[in-house]
């Protein structure tokens, strides 16, 4: 049984201008110990997907259909209260907005420990901070967030996420607001810690380089749909979906003399999305059959593609 299983997720936002069918028929599963990346550009719906899992979407304007199960348990308000912070942990983008500036680190970590029903174990916490490459854990524990550098604060956040030995960590654009080197380092730490504990990781990002280094399986999102899923090497070396191909080609390369080409056009309006493939208007090899609803095809054993023309 997968650790996290999302089936048939559809998320629609109701606004003044109409209904935006943002997430369409999304299926995603994460096995135990697996590191899964959900990759997409802005507006692709990857953050909405993460927030749906975590239950962070406003209730009154959003309609959510579909099934989300964690270890077989259906995720709803009640179950989330028990699972979040204990069996499912989250790491966000910017430590300065996640850590409360008026409380010391040890008090904030203590609060997290209490969510799991016990108090802060000072020795275990110090060992954990040390394992996150924090050389002076005592000082960090009694410090306030503003006294820590960006990198240090990020590692404190990682420690907070790992503290209660979660089974799944959801990292939504982790450390995007910080320097590339710090981002790389924090993901390295997260990756090795999760490997050691057998924790699954759902990494949400737009950064292909991080995906290569820190994911086993990649799902590519475009306009609210998963258009391709594959093991990471396969996706980067032989992408099947035209969007993935263009996306991978858009990443600047050391080995290239010229700039990448990019992708023409804009993503579709969620208020009026095309019925068939949502990438069709921008696709260089679009055909008539692309206007019909397309389901995920199995290309070869591990690669799935939502396209009429896989190659």
């Amino acid at each position: 049984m997968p650790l996290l299983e999302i089936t048939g997720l559809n998320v629609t936002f109701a606004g003044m201008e109409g209904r935006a069918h943002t997430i369409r028929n999304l299926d995603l599963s994460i096995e135990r110990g697996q590191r899964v990346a959900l990759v997409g550009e802005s507006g692709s719906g990857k953050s909405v997907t993460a927030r749906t899992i975590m239950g962070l979407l406003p209730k009154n304007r959003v309609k959510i259909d579909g099934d989300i199960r964690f270890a077989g348990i259906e995720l709803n308000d009640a179950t989330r209260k028990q699972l979040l912070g204990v069996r499912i942990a989250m790491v966000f983008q910017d430590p300065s907005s996640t850590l409360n500036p008026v409380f010391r680190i040890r008090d904030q970590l203590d609060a997290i420990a209490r969510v799991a029903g016990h108090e802060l174990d000072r020795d275990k916490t110090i060992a954990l901070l040390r394992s996150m490459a924090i050389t002076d854990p005592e000082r960090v524990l009694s410090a306030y967030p503003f006294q820590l550098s960006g990198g240090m604060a990020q590692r404190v956040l990682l420690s907070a996420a790992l503290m209660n030995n979660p089974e799944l960590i959801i990292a939504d654009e982790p450390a995007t607001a910080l320097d590339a080197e710090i981002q790389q380092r924090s993901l390295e730490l997260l990756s090795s810690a999760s490997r050691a504990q057998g924790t699954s990781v759902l990494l949400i990002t737009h950064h292909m380089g991080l995906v290569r280094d820190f994911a086993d399986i990649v799902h590519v999102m475009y306009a609210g749909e998963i258009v391709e899923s594959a093991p990471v090497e396969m996706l980067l070396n032989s992408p099947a979906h035209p969007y993935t191909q263009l996306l991978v080609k858009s990443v600047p390369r050391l080995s290239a003399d010229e700039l990448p080409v990019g992708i023409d056009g804009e993503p579709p309006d969620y208020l009026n999305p095309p019925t068939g493939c949502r990438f069709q208007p921008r696709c260089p090899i679009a055909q008539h059959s692309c206007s019909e609803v397309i389901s995920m095809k199995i290309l070869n054993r591990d690669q799935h593609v939502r396209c009429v023309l896989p190659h």
Partner: protein
Amino acid sequence: MLTLKNVSKVYADNTVALSNVSFTITRGTTLAVVGESGSGKTSLARLIVGLESPSDGHITFPGSAPDEAHRTGRHVQLVQQDPYSALNPSKTISESVRLPLVVHGLPNGNPEIEKLFNHVGLSPQWLDRYPSELSGGQRQRVAIARALAASPELVVLDEPTSALDVSVQAKVLRMLVSVQQEFGLTYLFIAHDLALVKSIATTIAVLYRGELVEIGPVDDVFKTPKHRYTQQLLSSISVIDQLDAALKPSWPQHVSEDVEPPTSGCLFQPRCPFAVARCHAKATLQPVGSNHQHTCHVPYGSS
């Protein structure tokens, strides 16, 4: 084109942003300035466009006395990182773009604005719209159009595409390159993504904690980096295939902690696994190869 001589910048709270930086940019080329946060690259940009004045040293444009005239906004312009802060939300796109023209009394009617839009790949339909209706990539194009409006000679680009998606970034960069060729512009390009720098820059300058540690033709510096910090920077480039991975130097697994800067010599010592006693000596630029200089006491590739 532009010369900096011994430029330093110290802020009111005594933080040293830049320390004794000197370099020259040749007209028509692109100088990429790289470094992590705290390196001083943003201060450098602000000094060059005239938003701030150096505490020490001179910034000179050809044909003007040191430190004068470039503040008028006709010689130098700026494109900033955040497209969502770049445009006044209460003004239409055309009002924002025509500002430099209005300020300098240049023709600023719709035909002129449309021509600018054309250069940056924007449809004239956006003329009377408000920024809230545009995407990040489109806003950045508007910011570039505005920067080009009064025909500057030097454009300072402060990470102009780092807030954009990769597919959009590629298009905007291509547009920047073609505009540069068309108008003979000189670019000072502050970058975070080094792979990008390789494709777009002529020369690269590496800043560390306010000091210039290496400068040279981009191919030379990438192929044979000298300063250890450059080596670390290059090693941390995020790559997506083996081919690229093979092209970058390695860096030992080293825990870099936030430490106090050293009292003398090279500022990189605390983080450098190769530091030796002579690194305490003052760092000066040494030449290596043509136009390539660095300040390292134990350069990469030696011993």
